[in-house]
C-alpha cells in the first residue's frame, strides 16, 4: 500500500510539472486599414499602431505619420505595372492619401493591387494584396415607391459578373435620405427609444455579409435579390446599395463579429481576427457597388 501511494505521488508530481501554458506580453503592432472600391479613385489608407488594453485609445493619436506608403497595380504575371505613392495627411483623420500623381487613377475591377508600407524608425515591412471584385451592376428598373411590409418587396436584379473568388459575397445597405426619428420603422423606433442604439447608427442600415449561395441564380446568369424588410430602418427616400466584397474584407468583418461573441465559441474564448497582411495586422480590402433609389411609404395605419 505504501509503495502504491509513493508511486501515485511521483506520478502526480511528474504530470503537474510537465505542462505549462503562460500568458504572453503585449506587443505593439502596425495596423493597416484601406478599402479600394471598383471604378473609384484610390482609397485613403490608415496606418496606425495598437494600444495596450488598459490605456486610453484614440485612432487619430495612434496614427503613424512617418511611413512610406505605396499601392502597386500588378500585371497579369504579378509584376509591378504601376506604382502609386501616398502622402500623410495631417488633416481630419490623419491618414495617407494618394499623392497628386496617383490621384487620377481609377481602381480597376478584376485586377490585383499590392500595398507596401515601410518605416524609417520601425522594423516592420508591411505587404498586402487585394483583388478587386467585378463591378456589380443592377439591371432593370426598381419600383419607385414601395409600401413597407407589403407583399411587394424591393427586388434587385444583378447582372452576371466575373468571379475573383469561389463565390461572391454581398452586403446590402439602405442609406436614408431623410433620417428623422418620425421616419423610423416600429422596430428601430423602439430600439432608439429604449436607448439600445443611436439614431445616427441607423442612417446606413446594412445587412451583414451574405454568401451568393443564398440566392437563386437565374438561367441567364443574373441573380434576383429580395431586399428584406429588416433592412429598412427609415421610411421615405432611401438609397439601396448592393456591394460585392473581396475575401480580405469578408475575413476581417466575419472574424470581428466572432470576436464580439456568439458562434460556437464559449464565452471568454477570444480569437484574433483573420488578417491577410504580412508584417502587421488590419485589412487591405476591396469591393464594388451599385446603387438604386426607392421610397418606402408607410402602410395604412402606421
Amino acid at each position, binding site marked *: *500500500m505504501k509503495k502504491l501511494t509513493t508511486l501515485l505521488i511521483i506520478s502526480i508530481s511528474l504530470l503537474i510539472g510537465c505542462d505549462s*501554458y503562460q500568458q504572453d506580453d503585449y506587443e505593439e503592432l502596425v495596423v493597416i486599414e484601406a478599402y479600394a472600391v471598383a471604378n473609384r479613385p484610390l482609397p485613403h489608407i490608415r496606418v496606425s499602431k495598437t494600444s495596450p488594453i488598459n490605456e486610453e485609445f484614440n485612432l487619430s493619436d495612434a496614427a503613424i505619420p512617418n511611413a512610406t506608403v505605396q499601392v502597386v497595380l500588378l500585371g497579369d504575371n504579378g509584376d509591378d505595372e504601376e506604382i502609386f505613392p501616398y502622402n500623410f495627411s495631417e488633416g481630419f483623420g490623419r491618414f495617407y492619401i494618394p499623392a497628386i500623381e496617383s490621384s487620377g487613377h481609377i481602381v480597376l475591377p478584376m485586377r490585383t493591387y499590392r500595398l507596401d508600407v515601410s518605416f524609417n524608425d520601425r522594423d516592420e515591412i508591411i505587404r498586402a494584396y487585394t483583388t478587386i471584385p467585378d463591378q456589380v451592376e443592377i439591371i432593370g428598373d426598381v419600383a419607385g415607391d414601395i409600401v413597407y411590409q407589403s407583399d411587394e418587396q424591393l427586388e434587385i436584379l444583378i447582372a452576371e459578373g466575373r468571379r475573383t473568388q469561389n463565390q461572391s459575397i454581398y452586403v446590402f445597405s439602405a442609406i436614408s435620405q431623410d433620417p428623422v426619428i418620425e421616419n423610423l420603422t*416600429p422596430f428601430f423606433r423602439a430600439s432608439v427609444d429604449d436607448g439600445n442604439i443611436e439614431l445616427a447608427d441607423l442612417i446606413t442600415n446594412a445587412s451583414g455579409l451574405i454568401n451568393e449561395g443564398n440566392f437563386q441564380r437565374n438561367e441567364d446568369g443574373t441573380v434576383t435579390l429580395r431586399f428584406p424588410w429588416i433592412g429598412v430602418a427609415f421610411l421615405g427616400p432611401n438609397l439601396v*446599395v448592393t456591394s460585392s466584397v473581396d475575401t480580405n474584407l469578408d475575413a476581417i468583418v466575419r472574424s470581428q463579429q466572432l470576436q464580439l461573441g456568439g*458562434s460556437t465559441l464559449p464565452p*471568454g474564448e477570444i*480569437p484574433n481576427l483573420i488578417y491577410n497582411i504580412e508584417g502587421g495586422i488590419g485589412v487591405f480590402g476591396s469591393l464594388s457597388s451599385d446603387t438604386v433609389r426607392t421610397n418606402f411609404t408607410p402602410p395604412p395605419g402606421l
Partner: protein
Amino acid sequence: MKLQHILFILVLLLLFDTGFARQTASVNGYITDSRTGETLLMANVALLEINRGTSSNTSGYYTITNIEPGSYTLAASYIGYRRFELEIDLEPGQNLRINIELIPESVEMEALVVEAEAEREEQRNIGTAQVSMQLIKDLPSVIEPDVFRSVQLLPGVKAASDFSSGLYVRGGSPDQTLILLDETTVYNPTHFFGFFSTFNPDAVKDVRLYKGGYPAQYGGRIGSVLTVYNKDGNRVENQGTVSLGLLASRASFEGPYSRGSYMLAVRRSTIEPVLAVLRQSIDGAPDLFYFYDVNGKINFDATDNDRFSLAFYAGNDNVAIPFQDDANIRLKYGNQTVSAQWRRIFTDKIFGFFTATGSRYFNQPNVSIAGTSFERDNDIFDFSLKADLEYLPNEYHSISGGFWGGNMVLRFRDRFDNVDTFSNRIQSQYLSAYLQNRWRPSNEWIFTGGLRLNTFSEGNYVRLEPRISAEYRPGSRVRLQAAYGRYNQFLTLISNEAFSGLDIWLTTDEGVPPAYGDQFVLGAKTVPRSGWGFDAEIYYRTMRDLFELDPFVTDAAGLDYAELFRFGEGYAYGVELFLEKQRGPVTGFLGYTYSITRRKFPGFNAPILDDPTRARFYPPKYDRTHDVNLTANYQLSSRWSTNAVFSYATGQAYTEPLGRTQFADIPWANSPRDTFTIGNLNASRLPSYHRLDIAFTRSGRFFDLGDAEWQFQIINVYSRRNVWFYNYDFDENPIVRNDVNLLPIIPSVSYTVNF
C-alpha cells in the same frame, strides 16, 4: 505496442477456451427487488463454497455455469438490500433457475449510497462509476434533482458552468459522451436550454458512466458512455409519487398487471405564475416558457425465458419571447425515443437481448424582426436494431458479442425572409459489431479483450477498434487495473456552452474523416479499512482528426460540406482520486481530479504575425487543473437528514485581451468597430470556483395516504459570486471589464408524497 501485436493477443484471448465436456450443473435467474420486482443491474451473486461469483447484467440476469454437483450456498448482495443466502443442491446436468428477490434494508441503511467492496464486482471496473438514484434525489439541486448534475460530481467529470449540464469527461467535449436511455441514443439530453438534463429521477433506476477505456460492447464516441435505464415498474403493487416544487413538479405511477408491469412518469415546469408576475413589471418577459417530459415503460413476461418491454420518452421545451415592437423569438426543441426489447434465456450458458430503437431530436427556432423572419428546422431520425449475446462456456470465460446497425437521417433547413437559404439532408447507414472475451484464469487475474468493427456509409468509412484490459488482485483489498482502447466517432455536435436549444449534429463524409483516439488508463481500487473505499486512476488520451464547425463560418450557403469544418487534434491526461465513506452516521465521498486538456486547430491560436495556418495547443475553456467535490450525508434523527455538497475548481481558462485597435472606415458601417489583439488563447484563468449547497429533508406522512417528504435547499449558501466570463465595455475609454456571474444564493423547497 503495434496494432498487429494487440490483435494477436486479442485473438488468443477470444479463441482460448479451457472448457471440456463433463457433467456439470448451473444456476441462473433474475435478481430483483422484493418490494417492487424491479430488476437489479450489476448485483453480485456467488457460490460461497467454491468462491465462484458473478454479477447480474444490464437486464438483471445472472448465470453461474460449470459447477460440480453438490451442495452450495448461493449468496447475493446489492447496495441497500439485505444479503441473500440460500442452500441449494445441484445434480449432474441440472440447470437450476433461481430468481432472487432481495429485500430492501431499513431506512437508515437506504441512506448508504455507496456499496461495500464485496458488493461491487462490476462497478469497480476500470473507468466505470455509478451514481445511486437515492444520491441524485437527495443532493441539493436547482429546479429539479438532476442526473447530470450528480454525475458532474464524480472525479474526471466537469461542468462548463452553473448553467450547463453538459458532461465534460476526461477532457472531452459533451459530444464525446454517448448517452443511452434504455439502449437508445439521446441526442440532446437537456431542458431549459442546457440548465439541467432530461432524465426524470422518478423514472430512472440505474445510471452508469464509463469514463474511459470502455469495453468493446460500446462504441461511436471517442470519450465515454453514459447508460441510463428506466424502471420496469413495480411488479408487486401499485405505487405512485407526486412531488411539488416551486419551479417544476412531477408525478409517477407504476404497478403490476397479469403478465408484467408498467411505469409512467411525467414532469412539467410550473413557472407560469412567476412569468405572469414578471410580465407585469419587466419588458421582454417570456409570453411562454415551459418544458415537460414523459417516460413510460411496459413489460410483458411471456415465459420464464422470454421477457419483452416497450419503453418511450418524450420531452419538449417551448419558449416565446417578445422583444421591442414588431419582434419576437420562438423556440421549440425536444427529443423522442422508443425502444422495444426482447430478452431471452436461450440456455444456462447463453443469454441474449434484442432491441429495436428509435430516436428523434428536433429544434425549431423562429425569429421575426421587423417583418423579416428567420426559421430553422433541424431534425435527427435514428432507427436501429441491436443484438447482444452473452455466452459463458465455463468458469474462466465470459464471451459476449453483438451488432448494432441503423439508419440515421439528419435534416437541416434554414429559411430567411420566407425563402429557403440552406438545406441539407444527410442519410447514413451505420453498422458495428463486437466480440469480447472476459478471461479469468485465476482468482488474481482477469483479462478482457475485444474487437469492435464500425462502418459508416457517409464517406464509406470502416474502422477497427481493439480494446484490452487487465486486472490483478494481489489481495482482497487491492485491485490493480490497466486498460487500452481505440475509439472512433462519426458525429460532431455544433453547440454553444451557454445555450443547448439550437444544437445541431453533423456527420463524417468524403473529406471529413471520423475523429479517433486512443485511451490508456491505469487504476487502483482499494479498501483501506472496512466501510471505506479509495480509488485512483491515471489516464492519457489522444484525440485525432477532430472535426467541428469552423467558428469563422457564419454563412454556410454555397460552401462545400468539408469547408464547414475545421480539423484538429488534442490530448488529455490526469489523475483522479476518489475517497468514499460507506458506513456510519456520516457517509459521502471526496473526489479530486488533476487534469490537463489541450486542443489544436490550424489557423486558431496561431501567433498573430506568424504563418496563419500554424497552430498551437491551447486549453479549452472547460479545462480545470484542480477539481474537488465533497458530498456528505448525515442522518440527524429518524425524521431529519441533511446533505451537503462543496465544490472547488481552478478558474476556467479565458483569453485576456492584450491590445486594441479600431476599424473606422468599413464602407457600410456607421461607427468604428473595436477589436482586440490577443496573445496565447485561453492563457489566463478566471478566479477559482467554489460553492456550497445544503439540503435538509424531513420525512413524515401525508395523512394516512402515504409517506411524505419536505426538502429545503439552499444553493450557493454563502452566495459566492463565481465568474462565468468577462464582458468588455468599449463605450468606456480605457475599456472597462465587467464580471458576468454564475448563480447567486437560491433557496427552494419541495414536497413529495409517495403512495
